Every structure is written in structure tokens, then in C-alpha cells.
């Protein structure tokens, strides 16, 4: 009975995700008639037509990016919450997001500072490239730390402190920046699924899908990790290796998401809780697949939410925070009795 409900829940989220994905294609700030959208998708319009440009080159990569990022954030959050046995852990606890923001800050400043020396390819990475580099660098720092820190709690503290230090560096950099550079950095900080064109979505998307797939074999050991590392070891789990694998997958997912869409808040914390609550389960075999679908749904919803302001685009993080923060608060208030958090 319960299993059937859970299976229905998964189908429900998959259908929802599909529906929202289609809605992303048909609804945007510029008007394209439904007939033209279908025509553009089926390739019946010339590639340089306005509708094709909007639907194929703008809306489609944006929808794909929202779907992938949502799923990635959600899975990353599930893994982090399990690894650290902490309900407030999320994709950003390991400082990967901060690392990405440092990369972005550097690339914004660097572009101007070194403009006189001619555009070296390294400095021409753009915001996305800077984010990827920053995320990868901070990831390697965290992974190196994970090999030396013995327990989860220590690593959590390391990640949070690392994040603080990197953020401080960003602040220092920004204090030297020109107003328009600061503005670009702040705009990036709002997050957006729209900024990623096909080139980047294609490249990063493949890695994301691989990382999402890599999380599937982690479901079973993660279930044992819920009991704590000692119990997990007694159940035959190679705790050190699994911890390393979990951190790898989670930080790759978090880093790529940040590279694609900036630091997106709350989805990574809220979506996992939503899944556990709806499925009344902590079993990763149920929660993780559900998390992939639900994360996509939440991100697509949030992205559609950014268009509610008509011609003014509401920043993505405003929408996710306005949805996510009350949800978490509600979980604590209502869920305290039912021990969800």
C-alpha cells in the first residue's frame, strides 16, 4: 500500500516536471504563439526566425538548465544532510558555492584589470568559467581536507569555516571593484537559469547527469550512514570511501549548478525535506529518485515564478528564498511534533 503511494508520488513528480518543462517553453517575457512554439520545436521554422531563436536558443536551454540544476541541488542536499546528519546541511555547506563566487569575483575584476594586456584566454572565461574554476578549486581543498578530518562533524566545521574565509576574500576583492563590476557580481549572486546558453548547458549537463547517476549506487550505503558512522561500519560499509564518494558527487553537483546558474538558495535544503516528508521515509532508495524529480519541479516552478513580475524579472533567489524559508520554518513548527527535522 505504502509502496504504491510512493510509486505514485514519483510518477506525480515526473509528470509535474514534464508539465512545467513544457510551460517553460510556451510562456516567457516575449510573446510567441503556441503554434509557433510547436513549429519551432518540430523544426518547421527556419533556424534564424525569431520564434526559433527564442524557443530553441533561449527557453529550451533555460528549462533544461532549471531541471538539471534543481535535480542536482536536491540530490546534493540529500547527500550532505545524510553525511553530516544535519537537517540544515545543504549543497553549500562545504564551501563549494563560496569557491565558485570567488572565481566569479576574480573573473569580473580580472577582465577589467588585465584588459590592457590583451584578452588572455584564461581571463576570458566569463562568469561561468570563473565559477567552474572556483568550484573545482574549493572542491579539491575540501576533498583534501576530507582525507585528513576523521569525522563528519569536523568536516562540517571545516566546510563552513572555509566558506567564511573565501567569502571574506570576495569582500576584499569587491572593495577594490568599480561600481559596475560590483553590480555584475551582485546580479550573478541573484542566480538565474537564463544565463546559460546551449554550449554550457550541453557541456556541464552531461557531467551533471553522470554525477546524478553516480549517486544511485550511493543509496544503499547512505541508508546505513543514517545510523551514524560506527553503525555503518558495523554493517560492512567502508565509511571512509563512501564519505569521500558522497563528498565528490555532492560537490560536483553543487559546483556545476553554481557554474550554470549562480548560487541558488534553499532548493538544496528544502527539496530533500519535502521528499522525506511526502514519502514518510528516510530510505534513500525512495527519497533519492523522488529528490531528482522533486528538485526539478521546484526549480522549474521557481523559474516560472521569476516571470510573474511581467516585464520586470524577479531574481531567482528571491523566489526560492520566499518559497523555501517559510517551508523550512513550517517544517520545524509543524514537523517538530512529528519529528521530521
Amino acid at each position, binding site marked *: 500500500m505504502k509502496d504504491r503511494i510512493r510509486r505514485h508520488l514519483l510518477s506525480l513528480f515526473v509528470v509535474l516536471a514534464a508539465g512545467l518543462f513544457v510551460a517553460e517553453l510556451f510562456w516567457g517575457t516575449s510573446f510567441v504563439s503556441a503554434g509557433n512554439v510547436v513549429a519551432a520545436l518540430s523544426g518547421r521554422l527556419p533556424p534564424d526566425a525569431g520564434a526559433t531563436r527564442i524557443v530553441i536558443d533561449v527557453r529550451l536551454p533555460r528549462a533544461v538548465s532549471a531541471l538539471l540544476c534543481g535535480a542536482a541541488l536536491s540530490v546534493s542536499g540529500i547527500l550532505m544532510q545524510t553525511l553530516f546528519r544535519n537537517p540544515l546541511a545543504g549543497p553549500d555547506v562545504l564551501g563549494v558555492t563560496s569557491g565558485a563566487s570567488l572565481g566569479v569575483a576574480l573573473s569580473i575584476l580580472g577582465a577589467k584589470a588585465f584588459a590592457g594586456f590583451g584578452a588572455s584566454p584564461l581571463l576570458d572565461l566569463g562568469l561561468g568559467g570563473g565559477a567552474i574554476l572556483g568550484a573545482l578549486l574549493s572542491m579539491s581543498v575540501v576533498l583534501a581536507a576530507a582525507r585528513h578530518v576523521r569525522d563528519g562533524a569536523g568536516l562540517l566545521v571545516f566546510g563552513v569555516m572555509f566558506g567564511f574565509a573565501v567569502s571574506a576574500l570576495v569582500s576584499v576583492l569587491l572593495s577594490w571593484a568599480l561600481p559596475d563590476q560590483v553590480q555584475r557580481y551582485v546580479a550573478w549572486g541573484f542566480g538565474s537559469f537564463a544565463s546559460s546558453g546551449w554550449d554550457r548547458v550541453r557541456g556541464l549537463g552531461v557531467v551533471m547527469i553522470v554525477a546524478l547517476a553516480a549517486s544511485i549506487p550511493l543509496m544503499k550505503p547512505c541508508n546505513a550512514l543514517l545510523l551514524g558512522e560506527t*553503525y555503518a561500519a558495523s*554493517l560492512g560499509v567502508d565509511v571512509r570511501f563512501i564519505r569521500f564518494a558522497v563528498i565528490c558527487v555532492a560537490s560536483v553537483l553543487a559546483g556545476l549548478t553554481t557554474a550554470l546558474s549562480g548560487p541558488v538558495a534553499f532548493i538544496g535544503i528544502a527539496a530533500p525535506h519535502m521528499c522525506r516528508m511526502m514519502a514518510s521515509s*528516510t530510505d534513500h532508495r525512495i527519497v533519492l529518485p523522488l529528490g531528482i524529480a522533486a528538485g526539478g519541479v521546484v526549480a522549474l516552478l521557481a523559474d516560472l515564478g521569476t516571470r510573474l513580475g511581467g516585464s520586470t524579472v524577479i531574481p531567482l533567489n528571491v523566489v526560492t528564498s520566499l518559497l523555501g524559508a517559510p517551508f523550512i520554518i513550517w517544517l520545524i513548527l509543524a514537523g517538530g511534533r512529528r519529528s521530521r527535522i
Partner: protein
Amino acid sequence: MTPVLAVRDGSIGYGSVSLVRDLNLAVEAGEFICLLGPNGAGKTTLLRALAGLGALLSGDVLLDGRSLRRCSRATVSTRIAVVLTESLAIPGMTVGELVRLGRHPFTDWKGSLSDADLSAVRKALAVMDLSGWEDRVLPELSDGERQRAAIARALAQESDVLLLDEPTTYLDLTHRAEVLRILRDVAWTEGRAVVAALHDLDLALRYADRVWLFDPKADPSRVIVGGPEDLLLSGAVERVFSSRSVRYDPLDGTFELRNGARIPVHIAKGTDERLFRMSLRTVSRVGGVPTDRREARMSLARSVSGEAWILEGPDGRESLGSLDEVAASLRKRFAAATPDESR
């Protein structure tokens, strides 16, 4: 016969400080062993080493005669199950999910449970009196109920060896006795080796087949192995568990307070064994020393009518309605008799 689990020339401790040296211990199939000893003696450390979750400072743990270090984690997890003292109040996790995790070492890469796995889970739940509790969420349970779920998880693992660290913590008295009975049944009827570290001295001594008694007072500290009654007779249990103010009474299985006035009070034996025993307890509870010597300064007896207690002493004779009143009067009399010592 090779013991299922054994320690050879082991020493345990922290860092470079060894708590106990030259450990040579063995558990055989079908045996229920209780680990007794004061806090900090090394019981948990030994249990973790036996489970392969921690290392001995030196020496070896042998599983079927083979060093645990040479066994894979996966193998060990199919042979040894543990109950730790760590809290299992995991948000959102149900009793069913917890107990099903006991089958973790036996499932495929997805963690799917076979019919055999599910029947092991059902059996473990039934043994721990938790049938029908599968959907209860762990943090909602009382500490004792959660402890039973933790034991059910270990039972579901159906391992040859079961190691438990203070499994009766948080349980009410009935369930304590019940858990010890279950553990012994598991050992006796299913032929598993069960080792439990316990603080319930009396219960442990009543159920254990053999006792590993940590004696940190000995120099060097050691682990004494023996049948419960032999250890009682040799005085080992009394020595380990008595302190300046508390003495363990090996015959009664009770602790006697050594503080207070320690004034002898004669207690008339009477005809009713229950009344006699309760009056003994009352007197020693408030710091007196019950004695059968009539020369004692104070004496307590049942009145001839059998409805009151008669307390006599240098401060006069009183007729008291309950042992509560006897206790109150004794305390007053003791305080008056020993004004200097009590200061």
C-alpha cells in the same frame, strides 16, 4: 573447539595509555557473556575491538580463529552484529526502516530485501515485542522503546555473534529482565554467541553464563573470567563494586550504604519474613546497622498486637504506625547520638 570470537594477548586503552593488558578471552557459540565493571574500565573499548570497530593497542581479535584484521568488512558484518550506546533518534526514520537496516550486509547493491530478509525482520520485531510498530517514527518513541528497536535491528542481522553495549539502558525494570532473558534465549536456542556490557549487576549475575569482570582496582588492572556464582563466592564482585560509602552485598544482590551514623539497631526476627526484611532495609537506609545482638542500644520490633512498630533506645520507647515513621524517628535519634561525627 575453536571459539567463535576470542582475544589473544590483547591490551586495550587510549593512545599510549593501556587500561588492561594480557587479555585472553573467548566466547563460544551458544554462550551468553556479561561484561561487568565500573565506568571507564574499558568495557566499551573491548566491545568495539571485538566488533572490529576499534583496534586493540596490541594483540589480536580472532573470529573463528582468524585475525579480524584479515577479515573483510563485508564478512565481519555478516558474522557480528552490534548494539551501540549512540542515540538512534533519527528524524523521520521509522522502526521498520531501522530494523530492515539489519539486513544491510545481505542485500544486493540496491538494498532490496528478499522474502527471507523480510521474515528475519518480522521475527526480530516480534521477539522485541514491536510487531505493528513498523511505521512509528523513532524520535517519537520513548528511550526504552527505541532501545528495543535498536536491539531488534541487531537481532535481524541474524549474526553468529551479538555484541551489545549497555542494551538495558533506559529500559524499565520489566523490560530489563525481559531483554536479558531474550539475549540468553538467543544464545541458548539459536546457538549464537552473545556478549553484553551491563550495569545491572544483579540481573547480569542471574542470567549470564559467564562473566568478564573488569577489575580496575587490581594492579595491574585485569579482567576476571568466571561463572557468576564463583565470582560472588571469591569476593571479586564485591571488591570491584564496593567503595568507601557503598558496599555490594553478594548474597542479597543489593547495595548497602556505608555512610551515616552506623549505630547498631537490634531487629527482632519475628515470624513474618517480609516484615523482617523490610525493617532491615529501613534501618540500613537511614544509616543504622541492623544486628541480631541484643546488647545494641536501640531495638526495633513488631508490637504484640502486630499493628505497630516498637522502637526502643536511650531516648525512650515509641510506638510507630509505619516504617516511614520509624525511619523519621531513627534519623532524629541518630542525629542526637552522633552530634560531633556528623559535623
